[in-house]
């Protein structure tokens, strides 16, 4: 089993540390899935049985990294690792600090007493001093038996698919709403509107976003979903990854599926309805 990834571009490094931060906000432990061409982070719902995955982040590794090698046994040649997100995000934090610029980042799977994900960052300071910063993150290599639990995102026949033009605004509205109420209702309409509403004993708030592009609509079925406000907010924080396009698909009144298309990676997340 072998894994090594190297990158030299500063923009990608910045994105990687953003991603580490976002994962840290969402969950304590995250699963990293490695294949020959792809690297994906999977976030599972805490305390759920059977396992429910709420977020997938696929990275086109061959383009994102300058060097990307995965070697493993078996026909699919895959590696599954589970690691603590707080350590991952703090290991990458030196990529953001202003006074020294990172030259390269290497991520390797190493065996130091226990299996570790080693993050090796080469930094150059303003006056030309170079230093290397190495972090070892203990990981759990998941046995093949458990692999089947980490499937690709399920595909459904969605009722309505829309494209959101301004996720930042949606996020800031949801941020206010979560202070007022614990659940938020999302309701798309066939004429290009998305309504985000919440209500409590003292107040009802309904926000309508007009600039929504309808991609696909099948039938006139009701497709409003009522989701946990805090969770929706923490997922919408992915907006810092600066996606080019965001699509939002609704399945009846059951779930909503967000896809964030970024330059070299893609983030999927699912939220299911919470009944009143």
């Amino acid at each position, binding site marked *: 089993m072998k894994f090594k990834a190297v990158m030299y571009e500063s923009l990608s490094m910045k994105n990687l540390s953003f991603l580490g931060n976002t994962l840290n906000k969402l969950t304590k432990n995250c699963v990293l899935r490695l294949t020959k061409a792809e690297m994906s982070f999977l976030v599972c719902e805490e305390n759920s049985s059977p396992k429910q995955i709420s977020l997938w982040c696929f990275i086109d590794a061959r383009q994102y990294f300058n060097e990307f090698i995965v070697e493993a046994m078996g026909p699919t040649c895959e590696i599954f690792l589970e690691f603590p997100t707080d350590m991952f995000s703090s290991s990458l934090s030196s990529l953001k600090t202003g006074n020294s610029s990172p030259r390269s980042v290497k991520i390797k799977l190493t065996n130091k007493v226990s299996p570790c994900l080693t993050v090796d960052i080469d930094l150059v300071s303003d006056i030309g001093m170079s230093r290397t910063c190495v972090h070892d993150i203990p990981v759990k290599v998941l046995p093949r038996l458990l692999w089947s639990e980490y499937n690709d995102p399920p595909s459904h026949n969605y009722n309505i698919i829309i494209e959101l033009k301004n996720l930042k605004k949606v996020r800031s509205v949801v941020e*206010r709403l979560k202070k007022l109420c614990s659940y938020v209702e999302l309701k798309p309409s066939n004429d290009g509107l998305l309504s985000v509403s919440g209500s409590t004993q003292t107040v009802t708030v309904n926000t309508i976003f007009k*600039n929504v592009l309808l991609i696909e609509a099948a039938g006139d079925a009701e497709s409003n979903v009522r989701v946990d406000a805090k969770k929706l907010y923490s997922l919408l924080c992915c907006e810092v990854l600066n996606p080019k396009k965001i699509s939002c698909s609704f399945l009846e009144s059951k779930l909503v599926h967000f896809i964030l298309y970024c330059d070299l990676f893609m983030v999927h997340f699912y939220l299911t309805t919470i009944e009143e």
Partner: protein
Amino acid sequence: MEAENTEPHYVLTGKVDNVKNLTQLIKCINFKEVAVFFASKNGIKIVVEDSKCVQASAFIGTDIFTEFTINEELVSFRLDINVLLECLSMFDQGSNQASLNLYYRDHGFPLRLVLVEEDVVTDCSIKTLEALEILHFDPPGERVYNKMIADGSGLKEFFADLDSGSEYLDIQMSKTQPNFIIRTESTAGRCEASVSQDAEWIEEFVSHGQSLSRFKLTQFKPAIKTIQAAKKVSFQLSREGLLCLQFVIMTESKQLCYIEYYCTPVIIDDDDDETILSQEF
């Protein structure tokens, strides 16, 4: 939408081009949950009270509104000020200014706020409660004992040194220099700031004799928050020690609004009183 079809009769409607003008004022008086809302042909007054000792009112004149209609002499109700503030600041993070339309139909109906920012519309309905009687403090007016008018920025710096761990705040005003002294005392020590009436940021100082009043610092804190936003502050102490502060606040669109703040003093224990006075004189 349905409201527009049936054209309900509103007793109060208002329109503000930049909602931040309102949020700025309401933030200053947001120290308790419930606020009383009054509207008359002169504008809107929002009053917040705490334990029958502190009262803060924000006056929003009709000039802040681009449209303002009222069909009754006086409209009054209570509402949750935190909810009001959250609703008004819905688009605070946006770069564009949001406009606000405000509707109130009648007794028992919710206060409806419609905020518009570019292509996003928010419609909030805040439940209202019956207005309860509020405290009536007489403005010191003629009976004022000590009075000072100061620049907000100067007074802000003056109050910045307060020890926030203290339970009380003593304010002393007198004819002799230094004319204005504030004092706090906590386990960390005694902290005193004094200034004479010739200071650059003091515009006017009128004193009829020495007065020393003590206030609960927690009750004074909302006033400190308001000083930071104020352009001018009038600081008045009555003979009985009642504190009356009046703030002039400049909104983002350069209109003037007023906030008034009353705070009753607490009784100073005789022993403490003696020590403080003996140290001074």
